[in-house]
């Protein structure tokens, strides 16, 4: 083996490791959020008016963990914004809930307002809580 080919193989090896590493580090997050997206499509996970994701029925442990993880991150974001605006975390979360219900929930996905039952969004816009005025 010549020195040139050795260098070439070394470079190739590094490239393979780099690509594999990037793939491995990226894939878990993608798989998890993909699982939540799939669960939302299946109607087992949905947006709530309180600004958090909720679980409708039973889901896999992975989906449950990812929903909880997302909700913890959402709460952190709500807490930051609430402090900046001088409002409660619950108000910031509820304002975001208005947005998700008005603009994010797709037809066929489920959503919940307050402690009410889970509902499936039809072709019409979701009837928002009264405090969501101008949510669009």
């Amino acid at each position, binding site marked *: 083996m010549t020195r040139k080919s050795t260098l070439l193989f070394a470079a190739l090896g590094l490239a393979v490791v780099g690509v594999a590493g990037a793939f491995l580090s990226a894939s878990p997050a993608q798989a998890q959020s993909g699982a939540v997206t799939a669960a*939302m499509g299946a109607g087992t996970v949905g947006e709530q008016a309180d600004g958090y994701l909720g679980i409708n029925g039973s889901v896999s442990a992975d989906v449950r963990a990812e929903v909880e993880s*997302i909700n913890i991150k959402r709460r952190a*974001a709500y807490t930051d914004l609430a402090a900046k605006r001088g409002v409660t975390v619950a108000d*910031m979360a509820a304002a*975001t809930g*208005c947005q*998700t219900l008005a603009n*994010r929930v*797709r037809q066929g996905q489920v959503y919940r307002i307050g402690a009410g039952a889970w509902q499936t969004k039809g072709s019409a816009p979701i009837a928002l809580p009264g405090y969501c005025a101008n*949510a669009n």
Partner: protein
Amino acid sequence: MSKMCEQRDDRRPLRAGGYALGGAAAMGLVLLLGGCISVKAPDKPIEINLNVKVQQEVVVRLQKDAQDLIQNNPELFPQ
């Protein structure tokens, strides 16, 4: 006004025999008492509940923040 009400309150009981008269007087008393407005200072502070209105204004003001949050953090808002 309040003096008249006090006079009515202090009235002696009617005689047992005068039922019709008593009835009419009682009716009159009721009407008079009904016309009395008693104003008392409330023993509790007056509360006006504006929570709903305030919450509505707060939430509306936050809509823009919420939109930005969703746009800037798509991983937190899967669809």
